[in-house]
């Protein structure tokens, strides 16, 4: 029993209450513990990643109850990867937050932050469908708190919208789970996979409904058109570092789709077939378009970034909707990339808005800001990462997606969409950048006064904030520099996903060991042979 698998969940779950209990009046203590915990999480997830790279699927049976009767955590390459991304991103964000003093602008930031991590990590690790719901709720309610951190009328109203929309999503989640349980009598993902493969024919229609509702739930999280509407206002109005952390939230949805629809509803399932891919692909294409057009049309920096997030999610889901190993490799690579690209952009946006005073994030000319050159360089880097220009990972990601889509029926549509939207995004970002950083000099040239002062006193903390931003940016460089080992790992990950037998066997092995009298007939010993043959 490898207790380390539980660590990404239990560690923040212990730190957060400790912060509330002992240090809720001392921000320095909070910072120390929060950072230390996040750093520890990074190390832990690195170890887990290393363990997963052997290809063995590790199962942690909570309460020592065998699957499918108890809840299990499952560590395979994919979950290890997602946990690693999450905590790495979190470390950058928490450092930035400390550097920019965001955590002093409201209550309980670090506690909520840790709970947030617990929720996300838990969602990635669980092997149980209902438990996935529970952890969705954990990460959502924590995100509500972070989103409205520091308050403000607009932010609160945007917060209401965010919460309401996600409540609707969670409700649908329960409807879907009810349907699935009502059809299969199980909640464990692996067991679901086994039973759905053997579903009585007359039940297929209802099962398809369940699967479709579930897909919509995940699509809401991933911000897929036409149910993406919660995203722009939320991301544009959330505190920028929180928005940066939220870059992983859309990926939770993407992850769930990847997990569920490669293992539980793979395209070769009799009941569902290619149903989900057929619905996902057009929506993903539309998402890419809506997002990138929004980048061009946005009037403020944060809103522009928010739409670029939608656009990247679209590209990501195009790759996922292929449901081929090649597509999955592309999807995973692009998922890692777009997470950090979006986060980096939001952090840079915060640096800009912090310094621009009354101009905030409006894309109109204002006098140049302190450290214009440096921040301009950061923005330029983040932007080319997001729009997918070389040498950063975005370009490689898009190449992978394009190459993977080669054999798809809609190949022409997919290629045109990705290529044209990239151009739109390039134009949009270039416009924003030149207004923010170049035109500024014209403003001074026209006697617009000197650069905006940005309180010299906060320069030391800003150093930390800048470092954090720089760190997140550098991940994109590493992603393309180390593409050889990374794509190698992703290749194995995709292989593992598209042949879920190892996963299923690892989870359900317990059935044989379980007390015989505990076993009913058909359903329960079905897993024994499972789809192993």
């Amino acid at each position, binding site marked *: 029993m490898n207790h380390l698998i539980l660590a990404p969940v239990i560690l923040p779950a212990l730190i957060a209450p400790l912060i509330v209990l002992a240090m809720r009046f001392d921000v320095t203590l909070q910072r120390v513990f929060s950072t230390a915990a996040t750093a520890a999480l990074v190390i832990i997830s690195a170890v887990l990643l290393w363990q997963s790279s052997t290809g063995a699927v590790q199962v942690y049976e909570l309460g020592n109850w065998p699957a499918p009767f108890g809840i299990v955590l499952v560590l395979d390459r994919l979950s290890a990867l997602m946990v690693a991304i999450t905590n790495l991103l979190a470390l950058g964000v928490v450092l930035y937050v400390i550097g920019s003093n965001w955590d002093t602008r409201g209550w309980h930031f670090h506690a909520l932050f840790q709970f947030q991590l617990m929720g996300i990590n838990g969602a990635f690790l669980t092997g149980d469908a209902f438990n996935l719901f529970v952890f969705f709720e954990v990460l959502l309610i924590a995100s509500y708190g972070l989103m409205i951190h520091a308050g403000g009328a607009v932010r609160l109203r945007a917060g209401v919208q965010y919460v309401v929309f996600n409540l609707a999503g969670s409700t649908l989640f329960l*409807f879907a789970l009810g349907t699935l349980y009502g059809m299969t009598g199980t909640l464990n993902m692996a067991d679901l996979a086994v039973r759905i493969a053997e579903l009585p024919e007359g039940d297929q229609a209802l099962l398809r409904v369940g699967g479709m509702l579930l897909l919509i739930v995940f699509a809401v999280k991933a911000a897929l058109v036409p149910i993406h509407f919660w995203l722009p206002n939320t991301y544009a109005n959330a505190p920028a570092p929180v928005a940066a952390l939220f870059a992983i939230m859309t990926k939770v949805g993407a992850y769930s789709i990847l997990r569920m629809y490669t293992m539980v509803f793979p395209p070769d399932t009799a009941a569902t077939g290619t149903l989900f891919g057929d619905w996902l692909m057009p929506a993903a294409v539309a998402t890419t378009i809506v997002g990138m057009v929004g980048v061009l049309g946005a009037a403020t920096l944060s809103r522009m970034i928010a739409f670029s997030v939608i656009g990247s999610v679209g590209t990501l889901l195009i790759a996922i909707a292929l449901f081929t190993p090649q597509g999955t490799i592309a999807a995973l690579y692009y998922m890692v990339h777009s997470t950090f690209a979006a986060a980096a952009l939001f952090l840079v946006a915060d640096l800009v808005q912090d310094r621009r005073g009354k101009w905030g994030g409006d894309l109109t000319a204002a006098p140049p800001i302190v450290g214009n050159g440096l921040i301009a360089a950061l923005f330029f880097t983040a932007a080319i990462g997001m729009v997918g220009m070389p040498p950063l990972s975005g370009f490689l990601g898009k190449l992978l997606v394009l190459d993977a889509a080669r054999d798809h029926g809609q190949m022409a549509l997919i290629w045109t969409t990705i290529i044209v939207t990239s151009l739109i995004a390039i134009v949009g970002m270039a416009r924003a950048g030149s207004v923010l950083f170049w035109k500024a000099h014209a403003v001074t040239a026209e006697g617009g006064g000197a650069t905006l002062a940005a309180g010299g006193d906060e320069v030391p903390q800003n150093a930390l904030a800048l470092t954090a931003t720089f760190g997140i940016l550098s991940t994109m460089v590493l992603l393309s520099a180390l593409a050889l080992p990374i794509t190698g790992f992703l290749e194995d990950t995709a292989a593992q996903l598209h042949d879920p037998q190892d996963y299923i066997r690892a989870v359900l092995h317990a059935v044989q060991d379980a007390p015989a009298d505990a076993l009913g007939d058909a359903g329960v010993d079905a897993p024994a042979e499972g789809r192993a043959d």
Partner: protein
Amino acid sequence: MEALVAISIGTLTASAIYLILRQRTFAVVLGMTLVSYAVNVFLFASGRLAVNLPPVLLEPAPYTDPLPQALVLTAIVIAFGMTAVVVMLALGAFLESGTDKIDMKDDDNAEAKR
């Protein structure tokens, strides 16, 4: 019996959706509460219905399916937490902005003020 449960869930959901589509936060909150009732019963019913067979092992078998009940318990608690948050949030938004409209047409593009 099954028909009755289905009808109840249906009407609860319908009224809830109608409320959720209203333009004031309070109505939406009501809708959310109502729909959480609906979904709880739905989830509960996914274990099929049974009368006088509580899953308490003091009486002899058979028993109704206990698992959905446990799930619903969890769901109820979570729904309660969510409702509490959304109520307070709606209240806060109203106190801060002076309106309890849920649409944000007026200040859509406004940046968050720190």
